[in-house]
């Protein structure tokens, strides 16, 4: 009897099996699956529609100071027109679009990438505690494949959610940019893929060492919202204080969000888009390498 029984010599064997194992936990559990779709919709609906920043600048919200003599009707009309113009020019200047909802809905995509990848890292802790990790380690499957499967499943999940968000956002009244081309959607998936690979690699490297679920949970809770707000997901970087701008400039979420905005709602600036892709690409490659090397070291102790 041959020792390996004609087992595959392919170094990547098991990658899809392990990835699919993770994904099955998600798409075969209807409640979790539906919740993961509803969650971004709720956020987008409540946060995006509630923070109707544009309305602040419309004339109807402002009670004019009394003047002596009182303003005449034509003067009031003129003032109203002035405010309307001011509103769109302020919005255009700050957000590069007149519709804050469109601005924010796109930020939601980066938000989903962050949250989904963070929490998928948690499953490593379970695999450790329940002994599955040890079992996988005793099979000929490569250590790198075990980690890559985690990264890949988190990434595929986030990409699926990103697709849902785009669809829902359009239904909620997302204003697509001039010159929008359906092919741009592929670009959205590409940038999501890159950022998710990078993010989940970091989280898995953090999580793989801990035997308790509380530790990575605390780390995630500490960094997720700050990371979110120190990006352009909800507010433009150029209006932030200098020190925060510096942080935001190193935040991969900023580049991801900007790339998606360029693709969907802005009139695409190809140079900026290329720069965004370069930054996120470097981030993905660097952190995936660091994450996988660290985890690999840890697994072959």
């Amino acid at each position, binding site marked *: 009897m041959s020792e390996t029984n004609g087992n595959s010599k392919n170094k990547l064997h098991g990658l*899809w*099996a392990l990835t699919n194992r993770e994904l099955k936990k998600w798409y075969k559990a209807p409640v979790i699956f539906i919740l993961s779709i509803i969650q971004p919709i709720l956020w987008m609906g409540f946060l995006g529609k509630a923070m109707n920043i544009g309305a602040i600048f419309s004339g109807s919200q402002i009670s004019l100071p009394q003047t002596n003599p009182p303003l005449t009707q034509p003067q009031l009309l003129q003032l109203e027109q002035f405010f309307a113009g001011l509103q769109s020019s302020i919005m255009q200047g700050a957000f590069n679009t007149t519709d804050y909802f469109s601005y924010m809905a796109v930020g939601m995509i980066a938000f989903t990438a962050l949250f989904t990848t963070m929490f998928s890292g948690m499953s490593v802790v*379970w695999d450790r505690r*329940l*002994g599955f990790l*040890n079992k996988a380690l005793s099979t000929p499957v490569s250590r790198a494949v075990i980690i890559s499967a985690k990264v890949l499943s988190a990434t595929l999940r986030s990409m699926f959610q990103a697709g849902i968000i785009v669809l829902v956002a359009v239904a909620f009244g997302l204003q697509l940019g001039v010159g929008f081309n359906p092919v741009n959607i592929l670009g959205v998936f590409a940038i999501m893929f890159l950022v998710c690979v990078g993010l989940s690699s970091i989280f898995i490297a953090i999580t793989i060492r801990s035997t308790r679920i509380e530790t990575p949970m605390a780390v995630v809770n500490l960094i997720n919202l700050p990371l979110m707000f120190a990006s352009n997901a909800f507010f433009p970087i150029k209006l932030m204080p200098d020190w925060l701008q510096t942080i935001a400039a190193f935040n991969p979420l900023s580049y991801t969000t900007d790339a998606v905005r360029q693709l969907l709602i802005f009139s695409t600036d190809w140079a900026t888009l290329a720069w965004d892709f370069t930054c996120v690409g470097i981030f993905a490659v660097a952190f995936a390498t660091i994450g996988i090397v660290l985890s690999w070291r840890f697994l*072959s102790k």
Partner: protein
Amino acid sequence: MSEEVIKAEGLTKVFNKHLTAVDHVNFSVKQGEIFGFLGPNGAGKTTTINMLITILKPTEGKASVSNFDIAKQDFNVRNVIGVVPQEYTADEDLTGLENILLCADLYGIPRNVAKERAMELLKLVELTDFKDKKVQTFSGGMRRRLELACGLINRPKVLFLDEPTLGLDVQTRAATWNYIKLLKKNYGMTLFMTTHYLEEADVLCDRVAIIDHGKIVVVGSPEELKHSLGGDLITLAIKEDEDVSGLIQKVEHVKEVRREDGAYRIKAELGEITTPFIIEALRKKGYTVTRLSLTEPTLNEVYLEYTGKSMRDAEESREAFAAQRMTMRRARQ
């Protein structure tokens, strides 16, 4: 064939530079035998198994499985071994069949071969009827059998079982023993198992090693070990009132005779063989034996002798561990 399938020489594992879990352990396991690792909690059983299945790297010393070095040829080792871990590692959200196929994928076994083998293994462990049920619905015994099937998917030369009957009830435990015996008979497989159930080691193992504080204190077949304690206990009574201690003492292999309450407590080696000789000797002199019992020492005495620990203490913390594991599983759902 008495080829040495597992061979450990000075195998040592030190955690965090000061905690020596396994301390220069030497042993070898022959082709086709069931080798048991027996010891109290924290003795180093699981650490040893983890080194042999290449999850942990030894700090010092070396070991080989099927002639592959566990440190240098770990990939080859992983291909020829099967592992049935202490925990229930099967995925709760997948069905029994899906779990076996997942294991097959980890070994890179082509799908058509894997399906065929999975069906065969499901039949072996009598789970064919449950193959499409989610593991969530499985009982402890079924899960254990599924683990067994998963460990066999690559047709391993050596199967490692870490506490194969931990937390199972008496009947399920006995059933699991039957599967293990069947494996040895049908596949001529070499099995390496750790256990803390002494009767389990006694029933299943061809040889056992008792390990304590990271060191092997004794290796031998359960029979040898029991005999090493100084033999069996024979209790007999005769009709007559005379003291026949001197007479019994002269019989070969008898080591010690004591008269208590009209009965004789005799310590003798090879009790089954010695007893007839004692009866013979008494009869020749015209004495009538009215009552006789032969008690063999159990591994329990052996264990106590070599580790100086009562098995019950270890047992209690084991049960606590099993209970904790159940809680964790519930917590996950």
